[in-house]
């Protein structure tokens, strides 16, 4: 556990979380959410929980991003607010 790397990843996680709810384009929000999932995966792997990191990378960043994109392509790409 390297605390400088930890701090950097946590900072990027917070930045990604704020960006994902502030951006107007929903496709961009989905991609930022994927980046958030990968950063969480990096965090798990850095803390030594490799199995959880693997699950996060496959499910969080792989499948759920694709399902979000499928939902966006069937509805609208812009938020109203």
């Amino acid at each position, binding site marked *: 556990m390297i605390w400088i790397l930890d701090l950097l990843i946590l900072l990027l996680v917070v930045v990604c979380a704020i960006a994902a709810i502030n951006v107007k384009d929903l496709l961009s929000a989905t991609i930022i959410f994927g980046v958030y999932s990968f950063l969480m995966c990096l965090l798990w792997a850095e803390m030594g929980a490799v*199995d959880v990191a693997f699950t996060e990378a496959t499910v969080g960043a792989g499948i759920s991003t694709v399902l979000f994109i499928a939902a966006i392509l069937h509805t609208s790409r812009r938020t109203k607010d």
Partner: protein
Amino acid sequence: MKALALLTALATGAILLYGTMDFPAFGDPQSPAATHLSAYFIEEAVRETHVPNLVTAVLGDYRGYDTMFETVVIYCAGLAVVSVLRKKKSRAPENKS
């Protein structure tokens, strides 16, 4: 309204950060969670199951109920989505209206 929401979020975050001060240190072998079951799994799992990966041994054997019902939950979710959203193609259009 936004200021109130920010204040609530900041207060909750401060309380959560205050709560983490009582946690044991990261990877502390003397912490209460690591003294009872973890020692047993680390010492006995390879001898009892011949599986070197501890996570697989615990998930597949010692905590088999959890894994089984996790699979059943995913299976039920997929079954529900398919049975609700799947449309059969109407081969003969019977609704004339």
